[in-house]
């Protein structure tokens, strides 16, 4: 989730896209990823290289790529939508790609970046989500059996405050800085004119570039990723709610999707009736007279089009009240016994 709007927050979009790219590279398909970007940097008019988002000045790695699927864009990234995605309380007409269809055997990775403070994360410069709300959302997820294990990574200023309030089991959390510290950005690019990435995510990306789907690296290596000498802030982590030892948790448990494929040489016989289904087309009735195209600008028909008569509604409350007042004043003034003089 990237929660920042405006061109100078380019680095937050680059952060999110780097993690998205790593996760896709390690095997998780788009149908299992919900990507929320609060602003569009790639096709922003201020981007000198359209349709690209770069993460490293020297590597010139375009993390936007050619095959990106953004589920929530621009104004859709709000606290309400984020919490609805997590808890599953989504309006029925939401398409599948915008839903988190997880169950109690799913491991979920949540990565959030943006501007934050002690106990809150800012969404699009107009609203915030607090650590209490986030903890309650995770508890709802736990009670509805929406996750098996959850890894929460946050890259904002004072990020450790966001995981202080978690109380549901099986959650491991990482943050880029402690309470009272700011997370700093990595380096600016003079061609694009903004900072390209944040330090913590930059070193996490470097670490993830070395992971492949079969690697056995565990979480303890991820905790060591950005020491204070490189990151200037002190990254923190929280594992007390997690039941397994981080030593035994593989990185690919959360960042990758490793499928076990068994190859067999046995032959299967198909049912004969299934094959014949394709040729059955319903018999079509042909029209008796030829169909025709509509006229694009039927001037005569338009001019003589009668506007649809609006249904008559009885007058509403205000008008009725007004008329009642006028009539009451009239009768009070003149009195009923004088009415016969009027008529």
């Amino acid at each position, binding site marked *: 989730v990237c929660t920042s*709007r*405006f061109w100078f927050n380019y680095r937050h979009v680059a952060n999110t896209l780097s993690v998205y790219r790593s996760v896709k590279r390690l095997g998780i398909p788009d149908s299992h990823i919900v990507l929320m970007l609060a602003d*569009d940097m*790639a*096709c922003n008019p201020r981007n000198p*290289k*359209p*349709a*690209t988002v770069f993460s490293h000045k020297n590597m010139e790695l375009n993390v*936007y*790529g*050619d*095959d*990106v*699927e*953004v*589920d929530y*864009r*621009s*104004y*859709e990234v709000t606290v309400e939508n984020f919490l609805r995605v997590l808890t599953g309380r989504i309006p029925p*007409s*939401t*398409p*599948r*790609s*915008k839903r988190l269809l997880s169950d109690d055997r799913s491991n979920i990775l949540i990565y959030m970046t943006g501007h934050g403070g002690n106990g809150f994360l800012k969404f*699009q*410069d*107009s609203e915030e989500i607090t650590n209490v709300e986030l903890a309650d959302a995770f508890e709802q997820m736990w009670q509805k059996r929406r996750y098996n294990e959850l890894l929460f990574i946050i890259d904002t200023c004072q990020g450790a405050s966001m995981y202080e309030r978690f109380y549901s089991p099986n959650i491991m959390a990482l943050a880029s800085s402690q309470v009272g510290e700011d997370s700093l950005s990595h380096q600016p690019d003079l061609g694009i004119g903004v900072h390209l990435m944040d330090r913590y995510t930059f070193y996490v990306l470097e670490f993830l570039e070395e992971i492949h789907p079969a690697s056995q690296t565990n979480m303890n290596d991820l905790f060591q990723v950005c020491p204070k000498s490189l990151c200037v802030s002190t990254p923190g982590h929280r594992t007390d709610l997690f039941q397994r030892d981080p030593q035994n948790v593989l990185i690919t448990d959360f960042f990758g999707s490793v499928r076990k494929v068994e190859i067999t*040489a046995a*032959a299967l*016989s*198909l049912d*004969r009736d299934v*094959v*014949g*289904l*394709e*040729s059955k*087309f*319903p018999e*079509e009735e*042909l*029209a*008796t007279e*030829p*169909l*025709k*195209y*509509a*006229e*694009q*600008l*039927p*001037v005569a028909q*338009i*001019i003589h*089009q009668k*506007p649809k008569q609006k249904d008559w509604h009885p007058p509403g409350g205000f008008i009725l009240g007004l008329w009642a007042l006028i009539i009451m004043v009239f009768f009070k003034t003149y009195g009923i016994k004088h009415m016969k003089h009027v008529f």
Partner: protein
Amino acid sequence: GGMAAAALLLLLLAAARPGPGRADAGRERRDALREELLLSPLPTGDVAATFQFRTRWDADLQRGAVSHYRLFPKALGRLVAALGVRELHLALTQGFWRTRYWGQPPLQAPAGAELWVWFQPTVTDVDKAWKELSNILSGIFCASLNFIDSTNTVIPTASFKPLGLANGTDHHLLRYAVLPREVVCTENLTPWKKLLPCGSKAGLAVLLKAERLFHSSYHSQAVHIRPICRDASCLALSWELRQTLTVVFDFFSSGQGKKDWSLFKMFSRTLTDTCPLASQSKVYVDISPKNKEKELLEVSPPPTSVHEAIVQGDKKTYAVYDLLSPSLFNTSRSLNVQLKWKRPQDSSEMPIPTLHAQRYVGGYGLQTGEICTLIYNTHPYRAFPVILLETVPWYLRLYVHTLAIITKGKENKPSYIHYQPAQDRRRPHLLEMLIQLPANSVTKITIQFERALLKWTEYPPDPNHGFYVGSSVLSALVPSVTAMKDVDVEQSPLFTSLFPSSDGSSYFVRLYTEPLLVNLPTPDFSMPYNVICLTCTVVAVCYGSFYNLLTRTFHVEEPSRGGLAKRLANVIRKFRGVPPL
């Protein structure tokens, strides 16, 4: 042993399906794909490339449950069948087509997202189907089409007649919405490419690389689904899916390159092979001579054929490269079409299109304003009618009594006006007018509006950017220079057959004006916090003091004996013999 058993089993399977197998070979494929690329140099030196991919399916999606999808994408086919859609047109556009300098567009779309749909007469609740449709499309195309609701949907009564087969046009089955703030980027192009039968791996779609397509001044991708005649007798219908992509590269006018262009320069790719699923795959290059002179341009490699057609009322010549003809890839593995200008073109002879329009906001301040639309008819002697459709959001309150249409200094009364006023937070303004444009004239349409103050929660996160007003739509039958003959739709190129033409003397064109950006009076968003602090302070001080005065009782207090310091001081003074404090 196992391999022999497997081979035997396969043979048995192959022998065990005689009936469907034979019928399969005898029956023709019911769907076909045609792809086409049209490259036209524009008068300003830019190049416009229009891709069209047309999948035609000779089956009725509405009747009968169709379960086997081959070329027609399943996502769209099931959408059409489930929601009772008769026609669907969705366009996502970045940039603006400058009709005045570039000429009439083959197919224009307004900036942002535009969706218009005709539903079948069997649909009972059209609004509910419309809402579901926009949500499903927002998931397929990764666009925020779920923001389409009653505040930006209108029901036009005279514009947007169906482009496909129709029996009766009850406009209550039509819905039109435009989202001018929508951004178009790679995440919208990727699902669009995935709908193509060959994806972006073979055929013309290999040229569609996002980094080049979005580095342009106009990029528009669209999906059109409509029923068409299956053959000349038109007794049965087929469903047609057209995916079009128009891009205008402006290397020359932005000073980055020369006027000569090639496919490699534009797309950084060349064509290497054709899509095996396509029955036709052609590249057309517009080499029409201007002012009846000899050719100014030279295309290389030499085209497989030359095609002449009357497009938009004018005779045009095209160099055709048929990718399916075996002679094309004989000499080289890849096709890189290049165009060189033989002599520099005079910039003074830029042709002016017959119909073009312009729209802008007038006025000053944050209270009132004026929307002005200028429509130009540059034909020397023919007049023609045009329908103007304007959709204005509810927070710009239009004053219809100030609507003025002035042509050549005199008032021009429209033959048909349909105005539907807005309801706050529920419905936008809809203004549709049929105006007769005299020959060689400029028509100015002005209407004044007042800006409303929204509730403070209704502002978007960046309110100082402004609020967009969608483009207005001009639909017109423009008289053609050369009479158009009736041509067989299947034989003619795709770019000539999108709008069904009724007679040859005029052609239908749909133009869009610029979208407008207006500033609404924006409150100071830090004020709620300030107000709460101030009010709480005032209440605490005043009420608190008043409460204390009313509820506290006052006692007389004995003077205290003094603190510890005073007592110690008194002890010392007693020693000194001085009177105590």
